[in-house]
């Protein structure tokens, strides 16, 4: 029995009388502690998959099972790290995490425990030093780290990362990828990450799920990345498994399923 099962999911949107089928027959099983990336060209519907797992979108067909139970509606057991951090600008870094902690653990943990837990999660992403700053006072990378801390603090069964490093510069992105790898190694979270960055997908994932182009996009290929953990980006340069995985994904994206606009 898979930990998370996306079962024959399809979704169609109706706009101005026309129906657009975005996803068709998406099937995916994820084991506990697995790190799965979903990669594809922009507009293929990979974020839609994530939003369906999060419960922010209702699929037209099929459904999502988490630990054998059908998922309906959003909830803190499937925490999302949004692409543009989505911190509330009127709250401090600590208050942003606290909002989640208090909501999820009120009645289950004492006030002091909740405060320690907030602090602990900020320390996990190395942001405890800025806990009293407001989002506009910290850099984009730091905001994203707080977004990750907020998601981790909910103790989700599955962590959903929606292009979490997409808006960051290359150096900050690498730094954050390392931190996420370290946290995943330490806590063994189950993670689904949406990305369009091939290197990022190969470096971080146990499995890379490649999506075909829409409309009616589906999973084209499911590639296992058998690389030892902990992984270090420098040591992977020249590694055959790494290079083969990278080549396979590139081949899928640029030879067999070119972006529709580029193919025309």
């Amino acid at each position: 029995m898979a930990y998370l099962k996306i079962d024959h999911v399809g979704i169609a949107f109706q706009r101005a009388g026309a129906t657009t089928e975005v996803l068709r027959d998406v099937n995916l099983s994820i084991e506990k502690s697995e790190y799965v990336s979903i990669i594809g060209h922009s507009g293929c519907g990979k974020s839609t998959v994530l939003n369906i797992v999060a419960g922010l979108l209702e699929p037209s067909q099929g459904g999502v099972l988490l630990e054998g139970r059908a998922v309906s509606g959003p909830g803190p057991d499937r925490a999302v790290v949004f692409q543009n951090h989505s911190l509330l600008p009127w709250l401090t870094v600590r208050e942003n995490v606290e909002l989640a902690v208090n909501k999820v653990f009120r009645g289950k943990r004492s006030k002091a425990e909740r405060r320690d837990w907030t602090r602990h999660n900020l320390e996990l992403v190395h942001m405890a030093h800025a806990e009293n700053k407001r989002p506009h006072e910290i850099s984009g990378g730091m905001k994203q780290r707080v977004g990750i801390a907020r998601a981790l603090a909910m103790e989700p069964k599955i962590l959903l990362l929606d292009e979490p490093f997409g808006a960051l510069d290359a150096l900050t992105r690498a730094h954050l990828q390392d931190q996420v790898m370290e946290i995943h190694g330490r806590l063994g979270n189950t993670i689904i990450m949406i990305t369009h960055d091939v290197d990022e997908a190969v470096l971080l994932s146990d499995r890379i799920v490649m999506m075909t182009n829409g409309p009616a996009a589906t999973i084209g290929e499911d590639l296992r990345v058998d690389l030892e953990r902990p992984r270090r980006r420098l040591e992977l340069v020249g590694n055959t498994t790494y290079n083969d995985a990278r080549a396979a994904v590139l081949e899928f994206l640029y030879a067999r399923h070119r972006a529709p606009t580029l193919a025309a």
Partner: protein
Amino acid sequence: MVHSARVVALPNLKTAPPAQQAVLHPLAPKPVSVLSRVVRIGTGIVTQLAPPVLTIAFLLILWQMLASSPTSALPSPMRVIGESWEIIVDPFKVGNGIDQGLFWHVTASLVRVAYGYTLAAIVGIGVGVLLGQSTLAMRGLDPVFQVLRTIPPLAWLPLSLAAFRDGQPSAIFVIFITSVWPILINTSVGIRNIPQDYRNVAKVLRLSPIEFFTRIMVPATVPHMFTGLRIGIGLSWLAIVAAEMLIGGVGIGFFIWDAWNSSLISDIIVALVYVGVVGFVLDRSIAAIGHLLTRGTAAQ
């Protein structure tokens, strides 16, 4: 600010060779910082105050020159002070009927504004929230509001006099109907503009409707709300002066109209100064409250 700090620091840098500078710095930081702070505050005050003071002086001189000819229709500043000395020095005068000091006239106007504006704020924010949250309410009410809000304030006055049969509630109604639209429309726009991301965060956290209202909707909308409240207070003050000219009684608007009927042009000018200053203070007060409530994220 930065410039003044540099002016103080530069002589030090010039006299001290680079090698000595490192030694000098920790030894004598206090006198330098105190001196530079005094100079900085001093230059700050001068650079802040000098431009407006000079501008006002220039305008007064220009006015004096333009209006000093004996055939001039309007009085010069010196003549205004001379002719209206009585009302300038005694704003707290208590007399019979409408023969009151300017302070009491302004107070009477402010009381009317307070009633009308408070009502407008409550109704405007309430209906604005409804319009922002419900697409159905928006579709139904928006066209009506878009037409109503273009009606000039004074056009409402005869109708409200007919309805209330009294000057006081009619004036308050005119204030209300003038200032409610910007408050209402800005509030609803603020709520519509709450980023989808914040709504998604609320959904993932499963915030209750009340939690969503207090933790997300109010803080996200307050800056917009205060834009509307600020436009609203300005419009109220514009409308009250005009409305009072027509309804009579104690109030700065009727004071101006009465002065015109008595050909006391200097009194009108003194009253206009009051109207301007009070309007300015009202605008800044609402801006300051908004600044305080949004912890500085609202536009100044």
